[in-house]
């Protein structure tokens, strides 16, 4: 797991209050119960602050799993 993935998993785990060891690169809104639309907004805000980045609205709509998030951060 690379460093970005690790940091994203860390944030996903705290924002949605799931144990860190249950969050993986393929975790998504389907596997994490608290990941609803408001939770998603908070996740995006937190990621933007953490990675000092503004995501395009089109990307935000797709970033519902860790892999896609990591790609969006790298883009």
């Amino acid at each position, binding site marked *: 797991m690379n460093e970005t993935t690790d940091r994203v998993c*860390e*944030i996903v785990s*705290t*924002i949605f*209050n799931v144990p860190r060891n249950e969050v993986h690169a393929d975790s998504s809104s389907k596997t994490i119960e608290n990941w609803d639309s*408001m939770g998603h*907004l*908070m996740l995006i*805000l*937190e990621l*933007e*602050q*953490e990675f000092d980045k*503004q995501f395009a*609205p089109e990307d*935000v709509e797709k970033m519902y799993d860790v892999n896609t998030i990591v790609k969006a951060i790298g883009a």
Partner: protein
Amino acid sequence: MISSTIESIDSAIERGEWSGARASLQQLLESSPTLSNAQYVITRLPKIQDGISAVPFKVFFMRSFTLEPVLPLFKAFAGLHRLTLETSIGEFNTYSQEILDPKSALYRCDPGMAVLAAQTRDLLPNIWNRFTELSSEDVHSEIGQTIANLRNLIQIFRSRSQASLLMHNMEMPIVPSAGILDSQNPDGQMEAIRRFNRELLSMAAEYSGVYILDYDNLAARTGRERWHDERKWLTMRMPIAADCLHFLAQEYLKCLLPITGKLCKALVCDLDNTLWGGVIGEDGMEGIRIGSEYPGAAHLALQRVILDLYNRGVILAVNSKNNSADALEALTNHPGMLLKPHHFAALRINWQDKAQNMREIAAELNIGIDSLAFIDDNPVERERIRLELPEVAVLEIPADPIYYAQILRDSPVFARLSLSHEDKERGKMYAEQRQRLELHQNAASIEDYYRSLKMQMEINPLSPMTLARIAQLTQKTNQFNLTTRRYTEQQLEEMDKDPNWDIYSFSVRDVFGDNGLIAVAILHNEGDSVEIDTLLMSCRVIGRTVETAIISLLAEKVKRAGTITLQGWFLPTKKNAPAETFYPDHRFTKVKDEESGQLWKFDLTKDNISFPDWIELCSA
């Protein structure tokens, strides 16, 4: 968030180091108030079982924009002040329905506090969007109608809910629609919004429990450009930048603490390198830095803030490791000093443990340890207090004194939403109490002491001016209170209308100043006898024969009205031992002894209670 911080907090919790873990959580959130840190604090706080329970409290948000991301921050900050928040949030722009419909989510939630978070663009859409097209009549009519609508909503809300209502005021645009021309125009867009805010403020002041959150100033404080996030507004209806959310959460907290009564009553101050720069015992009067020139100016700014707190009722005390004579000399005679010994209600200037001093200060002031806040430049002393007395609000300050004044001014623990006359005078009254005690210690006999106080007493029937204070005293007086019956303002008003009830208040002043309204008596006329339903006195004047003066006055009053016996119950509680011997001390005889208490009687035809000759009775 740094995972090493998490690990160290989690292991402190596992080891049961509650105070340390709590302090680290606070530090984490204050130094980096992000959403994940907020979530982290929320999940860890319930695990800290230090025996001090948190109070649950419900807040309902009515709103015109996405407010959800503020809530975890608000909950985390409140949790650190031992308030467990349950928050509910209404739909976008549905606050009218929520207030008008008695079955709405708002009333079902039955909150302790409701927030109306609306934006200028929603409440004043024409002034915000189309200002250049409007005539000045249009502007006036939009302001007038919006205020009228809000007034109607507030009235309905007030009639249905006991909750406090907190309303955002309206923010200015970053750039007004006419640019710099707007600044030249007394009828411009900015002025229109200011006018609306002034009217909103006056209206809120007409209702009890309705308060204003100065949202405009909050945005201005960080800078409107930084505050507003246009992208988030357009895509998610969230106008506030992520790194500014915590400012709003902290502002909510400042309003919440006075509403829930989680307040600090006293500020305990260190002296060396806090109230002044340098160490008085080493640097001497000439060496310490306090005054209008830097670096003394930073400490003077702090003293200014402390004096402002004193002027709105915060009690001041000193807790310092020093030779008492040196420190008092500096406070009394240093020309740069703003705070003087007479501002402080308790002084602990000695070499003993500061935690022990804190306990003594609380005992001397007769307030709980959890009502104390502490400011000290020395992190070791702060840590000591935090570990030993976790109930004390320890202010976290950096090494550089330049920041002290601002941090204290911004601290939520002294936030107040209203101020009574008593509040304004409180700091002074407690400080005067210390001088009284000193006089007491110097007096040859107790009568000499009473005489030297030159007490003057006033008795008054209940009036609209004193109603709130009388209700407040029945609500919170625990020690000298014979029956501990609690009454609301409404109940007292009802009783006052009934000719069989008499409600009196007593005020006392003395050589050191005005003690204010300090006692209440409620009498019920039962034909030949009068029953003392309530007799209570603030602990401020205990031990000065004021209670004897009161009962003497009451006996005289009812005797003149033809009453034969004066009677009253003493109902013991855990806290009212100071009133236990009141009736026997004044030659009442016990006529009933029940589990709940004793009934005492005084035969006015056979005996009388003399008025202490050292108290002067004044007419109102």
